[in-house]
């Protein structure tokens, strides 16, 4: 098996791991982290498309690689926006959960900091 195929299989496994974490982990920050795992798995699969496209003297196809670079930056921007929303949610409700039942409960003492 070539290094590229192996990396592609790792990418597939990373998407699976991330998906599991996204569903199972109750904390929103952990969900964002898991979502980033999914993202990097998808980038890796795209990366082997770039590697397989080697021709014309390049050991890779530069177009998918450039799109992955753009993708990494956009993924970070999305994570930052998600984190800001979580911090604001916590400020408003005192909860750090996306569980609707939990967030309608009165916040615990000291949790409200505004």
């Amino acid at each position, binding site marked *: 098996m070539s290094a590229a195929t192996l990396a592609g299989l790792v*990418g597939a496994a990373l998407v*699976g791991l991330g998906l599991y974490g996204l*569903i199972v982990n109750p904390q929103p*920050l952990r969900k964002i982290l898991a979502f980033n*795992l999914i993202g990097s798995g998808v980038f890796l699969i795209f990366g082997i498309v770039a590697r397989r*496209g080697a021709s014309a003297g390049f050991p890779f196809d530069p177009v998918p690689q450039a*799109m992955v670079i753009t993708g990494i930056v956009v993924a970070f921007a999305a994570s930052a926006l998600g984190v800001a929303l979580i911090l604001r949610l916590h400020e408003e409700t005192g909860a750090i959960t996306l569980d609707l039942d939990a967030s309608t409960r009165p916040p615990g003492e000291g949790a409200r900091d505004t």
Partner: protein
Amino acid sequence: MSLLPVFDLGLAVLVLAVAGWTIAARELFSSVVGYVAYGLLLAIVWVRLYAPDVALTEAAIGSGVTGVLLVTSGARLRRAGEGEAVAPGLSQRALAASLAVLVAAALAAVVLLLPEPPPTLAPEARERLAATGLGNPVTAVLIAYRSFDTMLEKVVLLLAVVGVWSVAPDRFWGGAPAPLGRARPQGALLFLDQALVPLGILVGIHIFWVGADEPGGAFQGGAILAAMWMIVMIARLTGPPRIGARWLRLALIAGPAVFPAAGIAGLGMAGNFFAYPAGFAKPIILFIEAFMVLTIAVTLPMLVAGPPRGSPEP
């Protein structure tokens, strides 16, 4: 050469193990530390895929800046008390696990059944490379062949900053975000700043400059400069700027503004939107990239710093 397959296999196992740790770890902090290590390992995988440009971006942004973002926001949440989130039951976990295995298996099948011969745009990229004056085909794709994508990506970064700022309460609008580091500066951190920051700024500019011909470029150089500004803020040598500050606003829009300006100039000079006149392509590309570096170096720390938390009065 015979050792390389063993190395690849070991690397793959290590990446998956660390990724599993970030999902399984009990504490958010240990999970984030695992994620940073994971990003660095992934950068090595990218090097093995002959993608040093992606490796640099993954190490700097995917692992480094995202790690800082999660650590600081985790600390902000912890300061306000731990959450009382309930983990799902065993049956739900089993269901999620089987769904995850199904998706991973489908993707693995796709990876194994990719079309032969593989589609590629590399010959086209090679053919026009001389006209751009660049030596790095990835930079050529980013700033010349698919410059429209890169311009829109700058706009996405700007929109993310606007989105982050807009979740602030009205009374803080125009103020400064909360400080990143601890209240009292620590000696080791100050020493690190004094030793690393001047060097890091040079490295960042160097990576941007050589990006035209070698691995590197505006994203990677900008991310290193952003990291330098962030460690200065974490040591409390300077606080995050007020979001109403004019220089900050100008730096944030420099990249997204210069890009379409160059595109329209191309319309006048070379007869097409984003066409670069022959012979002048490289200077124009470096000019656009310089503003991109500035914008990235300012945008990433502002995204990490979060919404304004202080009074708008200077």
